[in-house]
């Protein structure tokens, strides 16, 4: 559609600036590269907002009262068969338009913030090149017209994440973390790819438009196809979801995300909090019509994966002492809310409340979580440590960071009127009406969230103790505080966006009300969580130690993240490396190669053995000749004798 032609620039700008900064960055002054990147992001942020405005308010709903999906442009990139081909293009519908706004806003804030945060770092230009690459990949992912385009950008996002985590490549821990992140998500992507292949084998298409049309005829070909007693379509959708499990760090693939905090903090804010990790949520949302109509049983599994992860991550977050790790587990927990919410959603109008709530939470979470990470970055910058023990009483030194951090904490804890309250409340309402077990998980998780976030807040900004700082911490510079203030405003007010009017399962607006019972419960549990944190951590007390003593087993387990890392290490080191790789390498050298060498040896030995036959000695030849003649004569006589008898 012509109206949206300019939207293509949203993809082109970051791609071009990645190439420019990537190739010629080393000839630029750092500030030039940073400014170029920031300008490019500002331009596409404006374009994204114009696109969203036009999409929702100018073009608006179609004749049937629903928002229409618009294929802005697409072209064939690689043809496999007559029906299967990878197209690259841009597909606008409510959720991709939403994602454009979220990604560009957070990314712009991170670009501005990094100008101050990364000042003086070696590789400043490289950092901005990677940020552009990441923005490009993520934008390409959300506007994908087909599942293979999504896979392409999915992989690119993974690589950008790898590059940013390993930004401090001299640090062994950063290298290890980047490898872990890439390999774990690659492992999940393997399932995703197989899922795509199975799906396309039957449907003969990659195209989202065909796949997500309600009542699409392409699924007829799955009829009766089953594998190991489960329908093939369920397999396919399950496998595709596994890709989402990896990127969105759901259990048991969550292990890479906490380690990914080794990257520069603003990059963590962008990738590992606000945008990349929601790719899995977006994937399920994108394919939601298939899940809800064709494979509801998979949707149930999705709900449970989310529910269990949310409470698991919340428990772990309560015990961590590295502030970025607390935030990482909080991210896992909050993403799990979105996943659960999709799992408990139905289709159409109020039935699709979970879907709407999930996207709503994605929207609000992006802002407050980015704010939390950027705030954490400012704090780390001030005290030069990630550990809570190195902090305390910072409120008097860093007022802007403190107030914005507080807003974000209130938002994530779900205290009205901050944004998190509205989105979380819709999720809880959707779960409440669908599955009480999941509701219980999320409800307890909400209490824990309030607790660990305010534990963090009090430990950083209050927790009066006799701490002496080597040099007085000071508030960050304007390039860092301005993004904090902007994101603070978003975190405070984005809850008032009328989401049910914009993003729904079938594109038709509906009225969503706040359920007083659920809202009351969720506020209640949040307040209790905050109150406990207040008692325990506002001042240095002995209460935390006493509690730890009482539930030592749980605390130790949670502190060690329930030993998932050790489990994975065991599988990779002890099984895959020591039991598969090394034996294969040895087998190859000893047996396969040994066999080939022994062939050569046998040939050699045989010729050594028989070379004596041509010795040139007449006596030997004569002997062999006579012997042969004798044998022939005997044989001849024998056969004649037999003939006669």
């Amino acid at each position, binding site marked *: 559609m012509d109206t949206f032609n300019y939207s293509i620039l949203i993809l082109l700008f970051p791609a071009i600036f990645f190439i420019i900064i990537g190739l010629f960055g080393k000839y630029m002054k750092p500030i030039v590269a940073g400014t170029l990147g920031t300008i490019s992001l500002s331009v596409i942020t404006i374009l994204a907002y114009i696109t969203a405005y036009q999409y929702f308010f100018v073009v608006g709903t179609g004749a049937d009262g629903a928002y229409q999906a618009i294929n802005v442009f697409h072209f064939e990139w690689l043809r496999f068969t007559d029906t299967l081909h990878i197209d690259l293009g841009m597909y606008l519908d409510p959720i991709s338009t939403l994602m454009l706004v979220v990604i560009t806003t957070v990314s712009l804030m991170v670009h501005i913030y990094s100008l101050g945060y990364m000042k003086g770092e070696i590789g400043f230009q490289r950092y901005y090149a990677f940020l552009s690459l990441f923005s490009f990949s993520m934008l390409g992912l959300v506007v994908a017209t087909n599942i293979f385009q999504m896979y392409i950008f999915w992989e690119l996002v993974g690589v950008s994440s790898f590059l940013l985590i390993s930004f401090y490549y001299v640090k062994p821990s950063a290298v290890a973390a980047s490898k872990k992140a890439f390999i774990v998500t690659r492992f999940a992507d393997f399932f995703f790819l197989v899922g795509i292949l199975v799906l396309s084998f039957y449907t003969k298409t990659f195209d989202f438009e065909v796949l997500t049309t309600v009542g699409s005829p392409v699924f007829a070909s799955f009829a009766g196809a089953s594998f190991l007693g489960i329908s093939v379509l369920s397999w396919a959708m399950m496998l595709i979801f596994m890709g989402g499990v990896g990127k969105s760090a759901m259990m048991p693939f969550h292990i890479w995300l906490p380690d990914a905090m080794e990257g520069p903090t603003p990059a963590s804010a962008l990738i590992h909090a606000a945008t990349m990790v929601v790719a899995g949520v977006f994937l399920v949302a994108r394919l939601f019509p298939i899940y809800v109509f064709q494979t509801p049983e998979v949707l149930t599994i999705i709900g449970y994966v989310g529910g269990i992860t949310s409470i698991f991550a919340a428990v772990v977050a309560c015990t961590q002492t590295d502030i970025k790790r607390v935030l990482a587990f909080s991210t896992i927990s909050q993403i799990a809310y979105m996943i659960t919410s999709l799992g408990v959603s139905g289709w159409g109008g109020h039935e699709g409340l979970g879907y709407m709530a999930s996207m709503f939470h994605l929207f609000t979470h992006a802002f407050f979580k980015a704010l939390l990470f950027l705030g954490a970055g400012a704090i780390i910058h001030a005290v030069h440590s990630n550990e809570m023990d190195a902090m305390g009483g910072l409120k008097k030194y860093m007022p802007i960071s403190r107030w914005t951090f507080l807003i974000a904490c209130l938002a994530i804890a779900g205290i009205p009127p901050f944004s998190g309250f509205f989105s979380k409340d819709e999720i809880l309402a959707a779960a409440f009406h669908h599955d009480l077990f999941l509701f219980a998980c999320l409800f307890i998780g909400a209490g824990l969230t309030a607790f660990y976030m305010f534990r963090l807040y009090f430990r950083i900004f209050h927790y009066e103790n006799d701490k002496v700082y080597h040099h007085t911490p000071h508030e960050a510079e304007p390039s860092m505080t301005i993004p904090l203030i902007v994101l603070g405003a978003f975190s405070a007010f984005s809850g008032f966006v009328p989401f049910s009017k914009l993003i729904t399962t079938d594109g038709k607006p509906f009225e969503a009300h706040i359920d007083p019972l659920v809202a009351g419960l969720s506020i209640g549990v949040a307040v209790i969580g905050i109150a406990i944190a207040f008692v325990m951590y506002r001042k240095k007390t002995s209460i935390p130690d006493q509690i730890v003593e009482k539930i030592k087993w749980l605390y130790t387990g949670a502190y060690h993240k329930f030993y998932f890392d050790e489990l994975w290490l065991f599988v990779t080191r002890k099984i895959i490396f020591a039991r598969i790789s*090394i034996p294969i390498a040895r087998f190859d050298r000893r047996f396969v*190669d040994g066999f080939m060498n022994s062939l050569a040896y046998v040939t050699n030995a045989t010729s050594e053995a028989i070379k004596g036959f041509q010795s040139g000695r007449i006596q030997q030849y004569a002997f062999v000749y006579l012997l042969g003649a004798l044998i022939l004569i005997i044989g001849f006589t024998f056969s004649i004798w037999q003939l006669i008898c």
Partner: protein
Amino acid sequence: MNILSLFVLVPTLMLLAFIPCREIKQVRTVALTGALINIVMALALLFLFYAERNAGNTAEMLFTYDAVWYQSLNIHYAIGVDGISVLMILLTAVIVLTGTFASWNLQPLTKDFFMWLTMLSIGVYGFFISLDMFTMVFFYEIALIPMYLLIGLWGTGRKEYSAMKLTLMLMGGSAFLMVGIFGIYYATSPTGDFTFNILEIAHNHPIDGAVQHWTFPLVFLGFGVLGALFPFHTWSPDGHASAPTAVSMLHAGVLMKLGGYGCFRIAMRLLPEAATELSWIFIILTGISVLYGAFGAIAQNDLKYINAYSSVSHCGLVLFAILMANHTAMTGAVMQMLSHGLMTALFFALIGMIYGRTHTRDIRELGGLMKIMPFLAVAYVIAGLASLGLPGLSGFVAEMTIFVGAFQHSELFYRIFTIIAISSIVVTAVYILKVVGKILYGPVINEHHKELTDAVWYEKLAVITLIACVAGMGLFPGWISNLIGSSLAYIH
């Protein structure tokens, strides 16, 4: 004069031109001029090929030429190219050029080295243009013999052992191949006028089913040895590890492709029935190659061994895809040949350059090279990303075409094996990132390495050329895919 014959003639003239050369500069000039002429001709060929196709020439092979070579056995010097051969010739030209840059400072006996290298390229070019099976095998052997001397004389480590092993195993493979080809030859006609001509056999003299059944395994194995088919791949790690840089590049980049190309031209084209019925055996073997090579690579510590095992895995995928015998998978197989050729040449070039500076290839003795030689290190990361299939680089498009194509197979057995082959993408990521993390990232291990220098101009030229090709193919795969696809019209 037929343009194709020039590809054999120019290197032959180069051989003559080397003879009077006394100084290393003259040798370089001849080598570089020849390589440049070849690449210009390869590009011209591509252009002429398109022109001819656009002019409406739909013949299967273009620029054909036929001359009787040995009357009584009906052996011809028959040549011609389709889109696939054009691309393979282009690949060869690129790798010979970059290989020349990579051995810019090679000592000693520079002249002899380049003469043997040129000899090898004659064999390769001849192989890709031949339409006559006998001529094909003739050129194949021409390409093999120089390898022995190149590794045995200019190699490192246990070079005599490796050279002997490589030559004997490949010779053993070609023994199988010869028997298979003679089997086909004697089945081409009931009356006695046999032919070696591939096109003629394919169009006019279908081979009898029973003959197909015993010749197919022989031909496939014969070429498979060169394509590093499990369990006949063991020449590859030793051979690559001992070979000098340019030879590794040419060997892994082009020579191993002869295996895939041969299977493609002879085994699959002339023996389609047996190919369908017996493919399951080889699917299992190639499936093993793919995973086995990848797992084997994880456990290695020598950079060249890692890359050699990785080649076993990637070339296994080529043969795997060929056996699927459908349009998409075979297109993918040829793309993988190109992609692997470029990628692996880049790897071996970089390993050679790193080895030339640090004098070690053991990853336990290397570390933090990113700080010391950023250009080479970044190039290595790019090569690694191409190898693990990053979209936008060549590996991705080739592998995806193979996977999508292979998964279209109507039998479940083949689809399950496809999934097994796909799992190699995870294992590949493991060994690539292991190397990148170990040798490029992290702190500098060896203090002496801090004084080393980054790439010089001719090294940069080689690396940039290869990266440009890898990225070009990854970003614009459409025309390559179409060019290959249009040459596969005989497959539904």
